[in-house]
């Protein structure tokens, strides 16, 4: 068939637009009918063909309205962006049809058919998501098995942390330094002591009872803060001129990069205590923190090394010619530039770290995903895996998205070259 006779010219422009739009409209009606009312305008045709009819209607309609420089702004926009060729028209239709077909059921499950009221599994009757499960278990998801009466300690610890971090953004430059030093070196000890207790009249809570989202935060925060300086030192070590330091760094980095995290965690829990002399005991959580920190530090080292290598030799020479020694040169000139260059890589490693924390289940520590795992096996709540994991996934996504946005802002803020 010669389709060129179906090409419009300025005279019959409007009739082409009308016909095309009508066809597209029929296509949409067809897909909506078949998605929601299990009927079909072309039901008299064989099943397989009738399944494709909305696409055919739509494609032909789009073909008819594909008019260059029609003068109608909206139409021109549609044509250049969604309808520039038959293939693009097909992709556009497929995406729109898929959205029509699959988004409403998803929304139904999430919101409209979901159950929010009630306290037991039996209250979930409507067929949608059973958010009652998340509601009932929320406390456990956040605090793990931490005793209810002591949860104010976790709240206080995190609230102080947020207040301090917030304050560091608003106080004058002079005090900022002290707040950051306090945050990095003093706060972690106070925070951990507050949560673990044992002194000052606080009841001791063993780390096995810690869990949920708060444990996710604790593990991530510690590993993030510690792996960064260690990784930087390793990166410098790997570029050192002294063979002993260089080969130690290389060996360390390659060793940790060569093993899966889950193995490292398992070793830290099972093998490590065997090497300790009798009677000494290192807490499970501490061992896990050290393991994750060293593991991520090895990755961080390679990210930072990438930044170091990207700097021109002239920067080193200029620093040296001004009389700076190794440490001054690196801390004042090289690292500020190198780290700025690799912010995307650092953010990458940090995000991976946060998402690696669920692996601590192998040593019996249950952070958010671990608690979900535990809750779904509760006999009263069987079959709630979907809700639990969707919830955990959303929480992780929010955390990671915030971090990623922050890294992008930081990049913009520190940009001085143009």
């Amino acid at each position, binding site marked *: 068939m010669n389709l060129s006779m179906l090409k419009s010219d300025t005279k019959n422009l409007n009739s082409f637009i009308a016909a095309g739009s009508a066809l597209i409209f029929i296509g949409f009606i067809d897909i909506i009918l078949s998605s929601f009312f299990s009927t079909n305008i072309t039901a008299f045709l064989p099943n397989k063909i009738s399944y494709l009819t909305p696409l055919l209607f739509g494609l032909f309609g789009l073909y008819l309205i594909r008019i260059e420089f029609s003068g109608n702004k909206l139409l021109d926009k549609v044509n250049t962006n969604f309808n520039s060729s038959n293939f693009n028209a097909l992709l556009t239709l497929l995406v729109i049809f898929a959205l029509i077909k699959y988004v409403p059921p998803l929304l139904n499950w999430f919101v409209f058919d979901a159950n929010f009221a009630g306290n037991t599994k039996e209250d979930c009757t409507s067929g949608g998501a059973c958010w009652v499960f998340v509601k009932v278990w929320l406390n456990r998801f956040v605090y793990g098995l931490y005793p209810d009466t002591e949860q104010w300690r976790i709240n206080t610890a995190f609230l102080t942390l947020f207040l301090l971090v917030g304050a560091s953004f608003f106080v004058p430059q002079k005090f900022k330094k002290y707040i950051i030093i306090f945050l990095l070196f003093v706060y972690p000890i106070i925070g951990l002591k507050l949560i673990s207790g044992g002194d000052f009249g606080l009841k001791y809570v063993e780390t096995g009872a810690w869990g949920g989202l708060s444990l996710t935060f604790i593990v991530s925060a510690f590993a993030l803060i510690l792996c960064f300086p260690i990784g930087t030192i390793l990166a410098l070590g790997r570029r050192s001129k002294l063979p002993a330091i260089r080969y130690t760094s290389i060996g360390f980095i390659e060793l940790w990069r060569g093993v899966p995290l889950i193995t490292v965690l398992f070793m830290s829990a099972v093998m490590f205590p065997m090497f300790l002399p009798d009677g000494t005991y290192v807490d499970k959580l501490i061992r896990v923190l050290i393991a994750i920190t060293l593991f991520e530090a090895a990755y961080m080292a390679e990210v930072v090394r990438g930044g170091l290598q990207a700097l021109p030799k002239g920067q080193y020479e200029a620093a040296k010619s001004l009389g*700076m020694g190794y440490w001054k040169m690196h801390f004042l000139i090289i690292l500020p530039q190198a780290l700025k260059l690799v912010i995307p890589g650092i953010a990458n490693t940090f995000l991976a770290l946060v998402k690696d924390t669920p692996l601590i289940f192998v040593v019996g520590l249950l952070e958010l995903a671990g608690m979900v795992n535990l809750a779904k096996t509760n006999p009263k709540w069987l079959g709630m895996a979907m809700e639990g994991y969707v919830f955990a996934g959303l929480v992780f996504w929010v955390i990671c998205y915030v971090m990623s946005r922050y890294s992008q802002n930081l990049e913009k803020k520190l940009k001085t070259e*143009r």
Partner: protein
Amino acid sequence: MSKIIELKNVNKWFDKFQALKDINLEVNQQERIVICGPSGSGKSTLIRCINRLEEHQDGQIVVDGKEISENTKDLEKIRAEVGMVFQQFNLFPHLSILDNCTLAPIWVKKMPKKDAEALAMKNLERVQIADQAKKFPGQLSGGQQQRSALARALCMEPKIMLFDEPTSALDPEMIKEVLDAMVDLAKAGMTMIVVTHEMGFAKEVADNMIFMDQGQIVEKAKTKDFFENPKSDRTKLFLSQIL
């Protein structure tokens, strides 16, 4: 006048390639020396050896009474006394021009911040760039950057200034502003060793000229003699090609 730099039989190899061959050179205080020669002749390597950005393998280099070798403990102190200006400026792009100038005085010389800033502004004034002090290097033209780099080196109050082809990376229009700043510095009595192809500048400020080829000093002479009456054929050839 007392000598401040002395090189005796200095040899340097890059792997098997000999970059410097038996270099002997003495520089007195307040003396201005211009080194010229074809590319690859070892001019840059020579002055980079003086503050040990390159290591020499053989011979003796004495700067301000201290020998430079791998055993030098206070290499940083010597470097602090020897200012250097690079072909590619090498300003620190993450710092403002003012911070570029104050960083080393504050951290290396332990100068109070206020004094360092006053000194920096004085030197920026001297190279006529004080109004750009708050800007970042990336916002300045090549000539402005090179003058800032000169000011940065001057802020360490060096006894000797080394210039490694300071105008080679600049547009012709900007060369003059940098050379003017250097002439100014020479008139103030700074000891200078300059690697450059700017023969006009050399004629104006140099006390002595050095011509290098293939890692050797081919000719060293008073500036006037060097241009009017060069002794070696190689020098004559070189001068005929660039003048």
